[in-house]
Every structure is written in structure tokens, then in C-alpha cells.
């Protein structure tokens, strides 16, 4: 499971550098992300731009991560591709997550 973690002053940017968030990687994704978010005192911005496909096990991992966020610390998702957006929409989880369509600012650095 390839995650790129870039903390800065205001947030922790986590880029999922994997094309698929599926049953083969959901558990390791969930475990890695829980480690990252559990002690965070800043907004966690999760970039899904490179993820072409997500299934319900990937969604389950997302929900577990959402629940693992410390009180008052936001988790923001961005860069949802059409196949990923579909899963959030059909399950109505798009109403639970904070999903932004704002253009990214910190990408060129990588």
C-alpha cells in the first residue's frame, strides 16, 4: 500500500499512490491510515486522484478512517475520479464525508 504523506503547517496531505482501493489492499490501507490520523492535530487531506477504482471494501476502509479521526479534526477527501465518486454517491456516503472539488495547490512540489 503506497501512501505519500506530506505534513505542513496547516494540514497533513496524504496521497494514495495506488490505482485501486479494493479488497486486496483495503485492510492495509485502513491500518496505515489509522496510524496516520489517530495522532493528527491538523486537518487530514486525502487525495484520491490516482485511484481509478474503489469497491465496497475500499469504502469500508474509508468509513473506518473517518471514525478514527480525533475529535474535532476534519478529514477532507479530494480528487475523486468517476468510479470512486459513484460508490460514495450510490451508498449516500457523499453526505457523510467532506468531499472537496477545489483545485489542489500543493501538487507541483512532488
Amino acid at each position, binding site marked *: 500500500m503506497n501512501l505519500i504523506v506530506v505534513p505542513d503547517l496547516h494540514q497533513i496531505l496524504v496521497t494514495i499512490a495506488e490505482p*485501486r482501493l*479494493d*479488497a*486486496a489492499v483495503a485492510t492495509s490501507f485502513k491500518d496505515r491510515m489509522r496510524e496516520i490520523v489517530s495522532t493528527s492535530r491538523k486537518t487530514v487531506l486525502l487525495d484520491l486522484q490516482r485511484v481509478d*477504482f474503489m*469497491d*465496497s*471494501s475500499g*469504502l*469500508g*476502509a474509508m*468509513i*473506518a478512517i*473517518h*471514525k478514527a479521526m480525533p475529535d474535532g479534526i476534519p478529514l477532507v477527501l479530494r480528487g475523486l475520479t*468517476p*468510479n470512486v465518486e*459513484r*460508490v460514495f454517491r*450510490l*451508498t*449516500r*456516503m457523499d*453526505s*457523510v464525508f467532506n468531499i472537496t472539488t477545489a483545485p489542489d495547490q500543493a501538487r507541483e512540489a512532488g
Partner: protein
Amino acid sequence: MNTAKNLDPGKTGEMSRPAQTMFHRVLRAEARIVRDTLTDIRRRFAAEIDEDALGRLELVLAEVLNNVAEHGPGAPDIGEDSGEETGHRAAPLIHLCIVRLAGMLSCAVTDDGISLPAGCLLPPDAPAISEIDLPEGGFGWFLIHDLTQELYYYREERRNFLAFRVPVSDETAPPLPEDQDGQFSSD
């Protein structure tokens, strides 16, 4: 691919119809193998099905195949928790067949895993959303019902049989025979 000559009204009979794209595979129900299979399916149908339908097909099949993997006798979760013996049992064997027909992809999946619980075949409600206690599972069958038509299931001896259709627009596909001269011989 020139399908026009196949549609020449002077040529009649089944053999003159353009071939329907198919995919058939026998696979073990393991997450990595499911992933590779889905990639191959996408490749097989990419030339004639739009991206939206490809995405829906891939999601449905991921849910169906992973269900078999997660609840099969060789499922890693069972093996880890309950001792050695279950961990060594082979994952269920899945037979998968997909055929491109007018307006749809027709899918059939059989496996020798455990029987499906009766409840998952009823059109489900989405898992209840509550900020306090969000469900982390239960979305798979909801997605399957949402994305398929004419979902059928039966169990015969030790095998599950599941059949369904994924609707597809014909607009981006090569022309298929019209109803008057291109009926499918078996359906």
C-alpha cells in the same frame, strides 16, 4: 472491424451476425486473482463499451467475486482466527461468463462456496447512515442490486448460480443487428 457486410440483408441466418464479445474465466476466489480478472475484463470490453458502463460492470463484479472470496472456506479471516485447519482449505472456484448483447452485458457467476444468505437477494435499503455509528460493511449487496437488472440466484447441490444484467448504451458500440433481422437465437 467491418460489421456492415455482416448486416447485408441478402445474407440471412445465424452465421452472418457479428460475433458478440464474450469473456469466460475459471478462477480461485482470492482478492489478488479477482483484481487481475477485473483488469482483464476491462481490457476485453474496452473497445466497445463506454467508460461509465465499464466502471459499473467492474464494480458489480468486484462485489460479487469478493463476496465469494470473503465468505469462502479459505477466507483468510476465518483461518487466522480459528486455527490452522481452515486456513489450508482452497478458496472456492468461480466460473464467470460475460456476454455483450444489445443494450446489456449478460453475466453469469457460479461458485462452490457457501450458500448465500436469503436476505441478500431482496432489494435492500442502503445501510442506515448515522454519524454516531456508521456501518463499515453491508454496502456490497446494496451496490449489486443498484447496478444490475434481473438478478437471479439459485443453489444446486454445492454450487451457487447468480445471473444478472448490467445495462449498457449501444451508442458507442459497433452497430448491432436491429430487431427485425438480428434476433438472438437463444436467450
